[in-house]
């Protein structure tokens, strides 16, 4: 089979052993997105024709078996990507109560694959210019945006949108043509108005869609310092929509007044995450880091598609790297990108009910990983991900793998911080303070003195003032999250 021509299964993004139903569903999904009446990017009509052709062959069992005979044998492995799975326990135990099991999945580029060029970017900076940004914040944002332009490569598409209660396109999406003009336009941005994130996001999406191209990394970076009111739901819906087109949204919050939970929710719907900028001086730093990560993309999106098994519940999912952040649990989970130098690691917590343990083995999850590699013209065949465990009457004595243990020890810290948050919200200040005290003692034992101190001060503040101190909650949240990244790095050394 010539390499240029991908096989019908890959075109539809289904496995060789897919059922007729799965093929049908994949076809409908793809066709809806790529139909000539609706598609936006060049080349999508051709893709649509390919999908139709593939479906014509695969939808008839007779034609399908004829076609199968012409295919080289399925090696059962993916030539571009490899994955590894670690379980917290070698088997489950027959119990009359619910039990937990943790699974760590690592997905990385196969070392031996040919070097895939990094894809060109299609990026929009969406900048908050509300009155609260006045002064150092806006100056730093401008400087960072200009720095960002200068680091772009000739093949990258770039745009800038400024927003307050209405949006303004500062730099329309284009390959950089007149850099000096764009820079002066950014310099001239003046602060005014209130923060309405949906306005900015919508205009940013419009710009990115101008340059939308499946062979690029399409991304929006949203920089804000304030709360948005009333348009949260619309923003989330928009994020879900653009995620379908593989557009990612990164949220960056400056200072103490923005809504981290909301930004996280937007970002995680697109497989991305949010970050916290405590001082305006760090804006540039963070943008440079983000640019490097985007320019270093190997796969721009990994999607976990799965069916929930009876009696098994995915309770919690968290990405450890490349960017730490909670994952939204849904039948199609966006796990985020794989970078050339940073594989994708994520951890799942399953709750298993006794009713699920009737047989000798139990399937925790049955699904597949769909990987989109922007720089590669042909689709990558999905990877089957089946997580099964034996069910035994006795607990296995063997200790959990160090990798899982280490990741969980850090994730526990993050979740304690989350619990303190929920307790403050419901007015349980004593309990919130206790959680922070516990967190502090664990941080101390892991050598994180500075952060432990912050947690203790915060506990004290909550007891006295019945609320978080300005910025204290975000500092603890994003720093414990950063610890998770460190835990991954430590173990690779």
């Amino acid at each position, binding site marked *: 089979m010539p390499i240029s021509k991908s096989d019908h299964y890959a075109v539809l993004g289904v496995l060789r052993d897919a059922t007729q139903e799965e093929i049908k569903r994949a076809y409908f999904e793809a066709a809806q997105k790529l139909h000539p009446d609706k598609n936006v990017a060049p080349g999508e009509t051709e893709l649509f024709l390919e999908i139709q052709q593939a479906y014509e062959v695969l939808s008839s069992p007779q034609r399908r078996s004829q076609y199968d005979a012409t295919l080289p044998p399925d090696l059962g492995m993916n030539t571009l990507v490899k994955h590894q799975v670690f379980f*917290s*326990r070698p088997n*489950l*135990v027959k*119990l009359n*109560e*619910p*039990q*937990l*099991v*943790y699974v760590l999945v690592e997905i990385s580029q196969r070392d031996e694959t040919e070097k895939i060029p990094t894809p060109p970017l299609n990026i929009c900076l969406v900048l908050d210019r509300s009155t609260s940004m006045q002064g150092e914040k806006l100056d730093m944002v401008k400087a960072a945006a200009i720095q960002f332009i200068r680091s772009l490569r000739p093949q990258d598409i770039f745009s800038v949108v400024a927003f307050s209660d209405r949006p303004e396109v500062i730099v329309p999406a284009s390959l950089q043509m007149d850099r000096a003009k764009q820079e002066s336009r950014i310099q001239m941005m003046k602060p005014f108005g209130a923060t309405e994130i949906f306005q900015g996001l919508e205009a940013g999406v419009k710009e990115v869609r101008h340059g939308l191209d499946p062979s690029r990394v399409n991304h929006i970076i949203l920089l804000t310092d304030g709360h948005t009111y009333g348009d949260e739901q619309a923003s989330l819906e928009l994020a879900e929509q653009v995620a379908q087109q593989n557009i990612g949204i990164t949220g960056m919050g400056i200072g103490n007044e923005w809504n981290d939970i909301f930004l996280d929710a937007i970002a995680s719907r697109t497989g991305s995450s949010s970050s916290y900028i405590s001082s305006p001086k760090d804006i540039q730093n963070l943008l440079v880091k983000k640019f490097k990560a985007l320019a270093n993309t190997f796969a721009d999106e990994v999607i976990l598609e799965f069916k929930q098994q009876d009696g098994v519940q995915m309770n919690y999912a968290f990405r450890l790297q490349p960017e730490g952040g909670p994952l939204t649990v849904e039948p199609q989970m966006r796990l985020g990108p794989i970078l050339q130098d940073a594989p994708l690691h994520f951890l799942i917590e399953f*709750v*298993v009910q006794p009713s699920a343990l009737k047989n000798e083995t139990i399937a925790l999850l049955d699904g597949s990983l769909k990987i989109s590699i922007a720089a590669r013209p042909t689709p990558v065949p999905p990877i089957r991900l089946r997580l099964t465990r034996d069910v035994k009457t006795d607990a296995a*004595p063997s*200790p*959990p793998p160090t990798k*899982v*243990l280490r990741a*969980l*020890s850090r994730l*526990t*810290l993050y*979740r*304690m911080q989350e619990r303190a948050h929920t307790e403050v919200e419901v007015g349980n200040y004593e309990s919130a303070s206790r959680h922070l005290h*516990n*967190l502090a003692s*664990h941080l*101390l*034992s892991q*050598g994180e*003195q500075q952060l432990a101190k912050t947690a203790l001060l915060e506990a004290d503040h909550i007891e006295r003032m019945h609320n978080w101190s300005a910025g204290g909650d975000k500092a603890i949240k994003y720093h414990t999250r950063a610890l998770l990244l460190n835990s991954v790095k430590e173990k690779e050394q």
Partner: protein
Amino acid sequence: MIVCPNCKHTNMAGTMFCSECGAQLVGKDSLITQNIAPGQDEVLPQGPSVPPRSYQPGGADAWGSLHLLDTGQVLPLTGRNEFTLGRISEGQPIMPDIDLSPYQAYASGVSRLHAVVKRDGGRIIIMDLGSANGTYINGKRVVTNVEQILNHGDIVALGKLKIQVLLKS
């Protein structure tokens, strides 16, 4: 169900870290079994407890090792003849050879430079370096800056941090 030994919170089976207080619940069973008999936590025994002779402290080239009774870690003494014990803290010019801060040294009252353990011919010696909370051998406080001979199985306390000395015969 797993009841957390630290805060008595009941967790689901399979939990690895207590969801209430964050204490580690699994993965250190092997370490717990190394702890010596109960009762020794409160009052130090008269005679040293006798560790199994078959135990090889810290590999082939170590001349001894330190067994931290509270956490179960074993730190080998190898590569040189003298080790200072203490904890590293910020802005401290002199570093101890063995940093005990990962083992709750601060909470146990270990000084930054607490004591020194050295090998002198066939003898193993410990000397308190003027610590704030003192050094004890089998419950008896030693005099600062005076060398004391250690025997296999002795329990040394730096402040409240208890360490069993395992020597290679």
